[in-house]
C-alpha cells in the first residue's frame, strides 16, 4: 500500500507524542510497533525518533512498549547490522531500569537482536565487543522472577537464532532449577536441555566427589529430578524433554525405571522382577506363594541415596503422577527413548503394560499407541500378554481398536499366547459385535506373523478329530470366520497346514477368498490350481518394469509440442488410458498415475477447447461451440482443485504447475465469456478480476517463476504493464493470442503421492427398515468412515447429506471425532443429525464425505492478523469449494408427522 500514506500517519503520531497522559503515549507506542510491522513501510525512519522518545520517557509502561516497538523495528530489518547494534546498546542501557517490565523487554530485545558471534568480530570498529550472553547471563540472578524467566527465554532465543551458547551457562542454569518460581524452573529445564544437546560429550565434575561424567548424563539426571518437582507444569516440561535426550548413556537410561525398592532397610524386588522370575522358572500359572515379596538382603545404610540419585526411578514417578498431563508426557518420552534403544524398550515394557490400567482413557490410549510404535523391538511374555488382553474388555471403542492395531504387530512367544489372544479376541467379538472388521484384520496379521505357533493349534481350532467327522460350522458365524482368517493367513507360509484341513474347510476357503479377499490370501492348496493369484503373485516382485513404463509414457508426452493438434490429442488420450490402467493394476503407483493422468486430461481439454473453430469466426455465430469451451474450462478448474487438494505429498513445484493450468482455464473462461456477452461493463469487472488473479499468482510463486520460462504466465507477466492500462477488449485479445501460443509444461513427478480416499463403513446402506422419527425433531445417524491420505482432516473433511428434494446439508464433524489409528489413516466416527418435514412415505437420503478446500490459505498472512486482531483460525476455515471423495451411501428415512 502507499508508503507515503503511512508516513503521513506516522507524522500524525509524532505530533501527539508530547501527550501528557501516559496511557495515550502507551497506545501510540504500540501503534508505532504495529505500523512498522506492516508491509511496505520502512521503519528505519522512525527508529531515531523512537530512541529519542525513549531517552526522555519516564513511565515504565511506555518505556516497555517503546522497547517492544524497537524490537519490531529490529526484526523488520534483520540485514542492517548497524541498527541492530544500536538497538542492542539502547537495550543494555535500560537493563538497569527498576521496573521488571522494562528489563523484560530489554532482555527480549537482546535475545532477538543480540549479534551473533561472527558479526561481532567482523564489526570491530573499536566498539566494545559486547558479550550478549554474559549480559543476559547476569540477569539469571535478578531479584524478579519474571526477569529471570525473560533472561532464560532470551538465552533460548539466542540459541534458536543459531548462536552457540557457552557451556558456562550450564552451571548457572542448574542453580536456577531450585528457583522458587515455577516459570523460572520450567524455562531453566529447557535451557539445560539445550546446553546438553550442544555439549553432550563434555565432562562435568560431580560435586562432593572426584568423579566426572558426561554433560548429557548429568543434565539427564537433573531433568529426571525435575520430574518430581512441586509444580506440574515443570513436571510436564521435564518429562517431555527427557524423551528427546537420546545420547544419554544406557545405564542412566535404565536407572529411570528402577526405584531401588527397600523395606525396613532391606532390598526388595519389584513386582516386575518377581513376575519375570516366576515366569522363567515355569511357575507362571501356580498360585502365589506366601511371602515371596519378603525383603531380601540388608542394605548398607550409607549407600542409600534418597534424592540426589538423579535418574533413579524418574519414569516410575512420572508414570504414577497425579496429573494425567504428566503421565501422558512420560509415556511419550518413554516411547521416544524406547524407539532409539531396543534394550530400554525391553525394560520399559512392564511399565507400559501397567499403564494399560490407568484410570484416564487418554493415557491408556497413548500407552497402547506407544507400545505399537516400539513393537518391533519387543516380544511379549505371556503374563504381559495377559494384562494386555484384559484391556480388550474395555468399554471404549478407541481403546479396543488401538489394541487390535497393537496386536497386529506384536510378537508373541508361545502357542499358548496365540491361543490366549484368539480366545480373548473372540470374547471381545461376542461382547462388542461392531468390532468385527477390526478383529478380523487383527487376526490376519497375527496369523501371518506366527505361522509356526498357529500350526499346532489348528486341529483344536477347527475342532477336527482324527477318526470322526465333526459337524460343519456355520459359515456366517463371525467367530468362525475369525478363526479361519487366522488359520488361512498362517497357512500362507506354512505349506504343511492345509493337510490338517477337513473338506468343508476347503469349501469355506474358496468362499472366503471371494467374499473377503482382503483378509484371506491366496493359498497353494494341494490338487487345486491357483486361481488368478499366480498373476498377482508374480507381478509383485518385479516392481521396476511398471515404474519404467510410467516414466516412458510420461516422457512420450514431452514431445507433445512438436506434434500437430490431432496427433497431440491422440497421444494424450492414449497415455491417459495407459496411466489409468496402470493405476488399477499397481496400487503403489495408483497415486502417481492418477495424478499424472488428471493433469494430462486437463491439457487434453485445453487443447480440444482451443481447437474449436469458434476462434476463427465472429463471436455471435458460435454460441454452441463456446458452450463446449466453457464447459471445458469449468472441468479443468475442477480437476485442478482435485489435483491440488486431494493428493497428499504434492510439493510446491507441482502446485505451481497446477495453478498455472488453472490460470489458463480462467483465461479460457474469460475469453469465452467475452465473446458471448455484450456490452463492456461486465467485461471490465472480469478483466480486472483476471488481472488480479495473475497478480496473485505472481506473488505466491515469485520464487518459481524462473522455472516457467516461455509459459503462458511468463509471457503474460511480461505484458502486464501494458495490460493494466489497456481496454478490456484489448486485454481479451492479447490473452487469447497468448493462450493459443502457450506451451505445455511438464509436470515433475513428486516422490510420494497418494490420492485421498474415503470409505463409509457405516451406514452400510443395506437396511430396508427406514429410520422413523417425528418430523421437526432430529434423528442421529451414526457415521463411521475410514479416510486414507487426508491431510488435516479436522478442518477439511465434511459430511454431506442430500435429501430427495434436492436440499443439501453440510455437517462439520467435531475435531474430536477424528482418530488417527496409523500413519496416513484417519477414522471418522461421528453422528449426523437428520431432520426434515413430514413425508408421506419413506425415502432415501444420500450421505457422502466432502473434502473442503480454500486456495487462499497459501497467501502469506498479513502482519495485522498476527497481531491478534483476527484469529487465523477464522480465516482458514472459510470454505472455497468442496470435492466429493467417497461413494455416497443411501439411508432410508421416514419423518412422520407429529402426533396431536
Amino acid at each position, binding site marked *: 500500500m502507499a508508503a507515503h500514506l503511512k508516513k503521513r500517519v506516522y507524522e500524525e503520531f509524532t505530533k501527539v507524542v508530547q501527550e501528557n497522559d501516559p496511557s495515550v503515549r502507551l497506545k501510540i507506542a504500540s501503534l508505532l510497533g504495529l505500523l512498522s510491522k506492516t508491509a511496505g513501510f520502512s521503519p528505519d525512519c522512525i527508529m531515531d525518533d523512537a530512541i529519542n522518545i525513549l531517552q526522555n520517557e519516564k513511565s515504565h509502561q511506555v518505556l516497555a512498549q517503546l522497547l517492544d516497538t524497537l524490537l519490531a523495528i529490529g526484526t523488520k530489518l534483520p540485514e542492517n547490522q548497524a541498527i541492530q547494534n544500536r538497538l542492542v546498546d539502547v537495550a543494555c542501557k535500560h537493563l538497569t531500569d527498576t521496573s521488571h517490565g522494562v528489563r523484560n523487554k530489554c532482555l527480549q530485545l537482546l535475545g532477538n537482536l543480540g549479534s551473533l558471534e561472527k558479526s561481532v568480530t567482523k564489526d570491530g570498529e573499536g566498539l566494545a565487543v559486547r558479550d550478549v550472553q554474559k549480559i543476559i547471563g547476569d540477569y539469571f540472578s535478578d531479584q524478579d522472577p519474571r526477569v529471570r524467566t525473560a533472561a532464560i527465554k532470551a538465552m533460548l532465543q539466542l540459541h534458536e537464532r543459531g548462536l552457540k551458547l557457552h557451556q558456562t551457562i550450564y552451571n548457572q542454569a542448574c542453580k536456577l532449577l*531450585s528457583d*522458587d518460581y515455577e516459570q523460572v524452573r520450567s524455562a531453566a529445564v529447557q535451557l539445560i536441555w539445550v546446553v546438553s544437546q550442544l555439549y553432550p560429550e563434555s565432562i562435568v565434575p560431580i560435586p562432593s566427589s572426584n568423579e566426572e561424567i558426561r554433560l548429557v548424563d548429568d543434565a539427564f539426571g537433573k531433568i529426571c529430578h525435575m520430574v*518430581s518437582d*512441586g509444580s506440574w507444569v515443570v513436571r510436564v516440561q521435564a518429562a517431555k524433554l527427557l524423551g528427546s535426550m537420546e545420547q544419554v548413556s544406557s545405564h542412566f537410561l535404565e536407572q529411570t525405571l528402577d*526405584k*531401588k*525398592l*527397600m*523395606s*525396613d*532397610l532391606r532390598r*526388595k524386588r*519389584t*513386582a*516386575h522382577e518377581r513376575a519375570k522370575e516366576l515366569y522363567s522358572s515355569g511357575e507362571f500359572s501356580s*498360585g*502365589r506363594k*506366601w511371602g515371596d515379596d519378603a525383603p531380601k538382603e540388608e542394605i548398607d*545404610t550409607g549407600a*542409600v*541415596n*534418597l*534424592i*540426589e540419585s538423579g535418574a533413579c*526411578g524418574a519414569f*516410575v514417578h512420572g*508414570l*504414577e*503422577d*497425579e*496429573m*494425567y498431563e504428566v503421565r501422558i508426557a512420560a509415556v511419550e518420552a518413554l516411547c521416544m527413548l524406547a524407539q532409539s534403544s531396543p534394550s530400554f524398550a525391553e525394560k520399559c515394557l512392564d*511399565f507400559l503394560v*501397567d*499403564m494399560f*490400567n490407568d*484410570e*484416564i482413557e487418554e493415557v491408556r490410549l497413548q500407552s497402547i499407541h506407544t507400545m505399537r510404535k516400539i513393537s518391533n523391538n519387543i516380544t511379549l511374555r505371556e503374563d504381559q500378554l495377559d*494384562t494386555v488382553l*484384559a484391556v480388550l*474388555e*474395555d*468399554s471404549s471403542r478407541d481403546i479396543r481398536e488401538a489394541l487390535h492395531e497393537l496386536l497386529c504387530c506384536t510378537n508373541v512367544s508361545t502357542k499358548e499366547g496365540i491361543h490366549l489372544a484368539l480366545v480373548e479376541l473372540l470374547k471381545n467379538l461376542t461382547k462388542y459385535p461392531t468390532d468385527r472388521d477390526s478383529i478380523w484384520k487383527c487376526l490376519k496379521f497375527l496369523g501371518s506373523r506366527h505361522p509356526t505357533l498357529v500350526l499346532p493349534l489348528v486341529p483344536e481350532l477347527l475342532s477336527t478329530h482324527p477318526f470322526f467327522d465333526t459337524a460343519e460350522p456355520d459359515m456366517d458365524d463371525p467367530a468362525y470366520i475369525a478363526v479361519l482368517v487366522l488359520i488361512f493367513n498362517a497357512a500362507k507360509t506354512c505349506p504343511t497346514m492345509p493337510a490338517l484341513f477337513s473338506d468343508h474347510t476347503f469349501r469355506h476357503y474358496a468362499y472366503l477368498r471371494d467374499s473377503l479377499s482382503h483378509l484371506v490370501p491366496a493359498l497353494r492348496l494341494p490338487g487345486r490350481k491357483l486361481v488368478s493369484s499366480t498373476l498377482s503373485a508374480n507381478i509383485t516382485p518385479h516392481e521396476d518394469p511398471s515404474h519404467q513404463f510410467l516414466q516412458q509414457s510420461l516422457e512420450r508426452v514431452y514431445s507433445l509440442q512438436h506434434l500437430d493438434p490431432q496427433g497431440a490429442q491422440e497421444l494424450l488420450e492414449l497415455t491417459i488410458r495407459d496411466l489409468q490402467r496402470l493405476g488399477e493394476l499397481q496400487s503403489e503407483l495408483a497415486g502417481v498415475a492418477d495424478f499424472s493422468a488428471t493433469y494430462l486430461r486437463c491439457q487434453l481439454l485445453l487443447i480440444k477447447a482451443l481447437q474449436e473453430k469458434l476462434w476463427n469466426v465472429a463471436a455471435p455465430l458460435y454460441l454452441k461451440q463456446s458452450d463446449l469451451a466453457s464447459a471445458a474450462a469449468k472441468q479443468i478448474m475442477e480437476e485442478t482443485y482435485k489435483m491440488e487438494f486431494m493428493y497428499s505429498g504434492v510439493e510446491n513445484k507441482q502446485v505451481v504447475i497446477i495453478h498455472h493450468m488453472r490460470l489458463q482455464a480462467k483465461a479460457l473462461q474469460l475469453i469465452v465469456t467475452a465473446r458471448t456477452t455484450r456490452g463492456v461493463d461486465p467485461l471490465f469487472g472480469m478483466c480486472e478480476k483476471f488481472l488480479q488473479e495473475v497478480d496473485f499468482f505472481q506473488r505466491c510463486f515469485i520464487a518459481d517463476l524462473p522455472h516457467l520460462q516461455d509459459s503462458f504466465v511468463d509471457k503474460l507477466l511480461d505484458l502486464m504493464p501494458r495490460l493494466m492500462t489497456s481496454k478490456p477488449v484489448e486485454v481479451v485479445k492479447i490473452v487469447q493470442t497468448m493462450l493459443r501460443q502457450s506451451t505445455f509444461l511438464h509436470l515433475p513427478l513428486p516422490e510420494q503421492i497418494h490420492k485421498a480416499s474415503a470409505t463409509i463403513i457405516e451406514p452400510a446402506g443395506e437396511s430396508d427398515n427406514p429410520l422413523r422419527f417425528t418430523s421437526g425433531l432430529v434423528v442421529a445417524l451414526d457415521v463411521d468412515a475410514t479416510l486414507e491420505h487426508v491431510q488435516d482432516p479436522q478442518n477439511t473433511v465434511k459430511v454431506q447429506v442430500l435429501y430427495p428434494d434436492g436440499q443439501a446439508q453440510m455437517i462439520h464433524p467435531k475435531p474430536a471425532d477424528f482418530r488417527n489409528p496409523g500413519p496416513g489413516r484417519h477414522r471418522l466416527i461421528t453422528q449426523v443429525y437428520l431432520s426434515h418435514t413430514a413425508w408421506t412415505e419413506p425415502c432415501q437420503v444420500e450421505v457422502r464425505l466432502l473434502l473442503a478446500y480454500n486456495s487462499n490459505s497459501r497467501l502469506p498472512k498479513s502482519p495485522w492478523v498476527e497481531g491478534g486482531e483476527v484469529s487465523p483460525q477464522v480465516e482458514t476455515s472459510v470454505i472455497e469449494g468442496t470435492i466429493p471423495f467417497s461413494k455416497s451411501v443411501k439411508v432410508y428415512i421416514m419423518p412422520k408427522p407429529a402426533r396431536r
Partner: protein
Amino acid sequence: MPEIRVTPLGAGQDVGRSCILVSIGGKNVMLDCGMHMGFNDDRRFPDFSYITRNGRLTDFLDCVIISHFHLDHCGALPYFSEMVGYDGPIYMTHPTQAICPILLEDYRKIAVDKKGEANFFTSQMIKDCMKKVVAVHLHQTVQVDDELEIKAYYAGHVLGAAMFQIKVGSESVVYTGDYNMTPDRHLGAAWIDKCRPNLLITESTYATTIRDSKRCRERDFLKKVHEAVERGGKVLIPVFALGRAQELCILLETFWERMNLKAPIYFSTGLTEKANHYYKLFITWTNQKIRKTFVQRNMFEFKHIKAFDRAFADNPGPMVVFATPGMLHAGQSLQIFRKWAGNEKNMVIMPGYCVQGTVGHKILSGQRKLEMEGRQVLEVKMQVEYMSFSAHADAKGIMQLVGQAEPENVLLVHGEAKKMEFLKQKIEQEFRLLPDAKKPRLLHGTLIMKDSNFRLVSSEQALKELGLAEHQLRFTCRVHLHDPRKEQETALRVYSHLKSVLKDHCVQHLPDGSVTVESILIQAAAHSEDPGTKVLLVSWTYQDEELGSYLTSLLKKGLPQGAT
C-alpha cells in the same frame, strides 16, 4: 531469637495417639488429639495433666489443630474438650469436620456398648465438642488471634487430610499430620509451597521403605482377590471405615465392572453410607480423575458394592467383605475373621499398617495360633496377605516434601525410633547445603521519613536531597616501630613490605614520603623522645574500617627483618 518448644504427648517415637504440643512465639498450640488402638486403659489417651495439673486447659492453649479424621489423630478430642475441659477453638478442614463425629460415635459405641466401659465420653459430648470446631479451607490463612495464624495444605492420605503451617511473627512451624506423596485412585498427592518454616514436624511411618509403584500394588491386589474368588473362597479386607476403604472400593468396583464378575462385594454397614455420602460431596478434595468425571458419574456411587449384614458371613460361595476396624482388634472385622479363619480357601488381606498388640499385627508376623478372649485358641488356616496400601509417604516421599518446603529444622514423629535414625542421617546428609534465601542480608542505605512517607535511598542520594555535606569519620592509630633508620627509609620499608603482602590492593609511595594503601594513609615520623623508635601514623575513613584495622594489626607485628 525466640525458641520453639515441641513436646509430643503421644506419637513421638511410635504410632498412635498423636498429640504434639508446640510453643512458638509465646503461643501454645496442640497438634492432633488422638487415641491409641493398642491400649484399653488410661494409656489410650494422651496425658493431658502434663499441660496443667489444676488450671483449665483453655488458659494454656491458644488453639487445637486436627490434621485428619483418623482416630489416632482425633480420637481423644471429646475426652479432652469435654471431660478434661477445653473451650478454645479447634481447627480442622471441612471434610474432617463432617466425618470426624461419625467415627467418634462409632468408636464410642464399640467401647461403651460392646466392651461396657464406664466413664467414657457420651454422644452429647461429641456433639458439644464439635460445636467448638472452626472449619478451614485449603490455603486459607486463618488468624487465630492477632499474632497466631494458621494455613492448611493438601496432604492426600485420606479425604480432608491437611498439613498445617503455624506462624507467629516470623517464626513458623509446619505440621504434616499424615500425608501421601503418591496419588491414588481417589486422592491426589500432598503439596506444599516453599514456605521455608523454622521447623517441619513430619510423620515418618515408612522412614526406611521405598515402595514399588502403585500400579504393581494395585494389580497384585486385584490378582489376589480375583484368584481367591475364582477358587470359591471368601476374602476379608479389614479396613478403617474411611480412607483406604474408599480407594479399594473404587478399585474393586471398576475391576468388577471391567471383568464382569458376579461375586458379591459387601461393605460393613453403619458408617459406610453416611461416609460415602460425604465422599460424594467433597469432590474438590479428590483426585483429578474423579473431579473431572463426577458430572457424568460420581465414582463413589457404587454399583457392585452392597451393604453387609451379619447373616451374610455364613452364606456359601465366594464373596469379598470390607469390614471395620482395620487392625482386627475389635468389632465386625474380628468377628468375621474368627468365622472364616479355619478355612484355607479363604483369605484375609491386610491393606495397611497394624499397631503392635493387635490381632492384625500378630497374624502378619506369622502367628498361626491366636489366643482369644476366654482362653479360646483360634487356629488360622486362611491365607494371610499383606498389601501396603497404607497412604503414608515412603522415605523418598518424605525427602521430597522436605525438599519442597525447605525447612531449617526437621522433626520426625509418628514412626519407630530406629527407622527415624536412618532417615535423620539421610536428611542431614542430603540437605546439608540447603539454600537459605530468607537469610537477612546487609544493606547500606538511608531511610528518609518525610511527609509521613518512607523511602529507602542510597546515602549519596540522601545527602544530595537533603543538601548535607558528608561527614567524614576518620580513625587514626599510632604504631610504634623499632627502627633506627631515617623516616624516609622506614617509609620505604613499610611500602615494600605492604606491597608484597597486599597484592590485591593498590599500594603507593607518595613523593612526600607517605604511603597509601587505597585511601589509607601511613606516615612515618621519628619519636620525639627515642630516636630509635619510629611512629607510624595510620589514618583511614569509616568506610575502610576493615582494611584499616587489618593494616594496623599487620604493622603492629613489625616489619620483617630481611627487608630493606
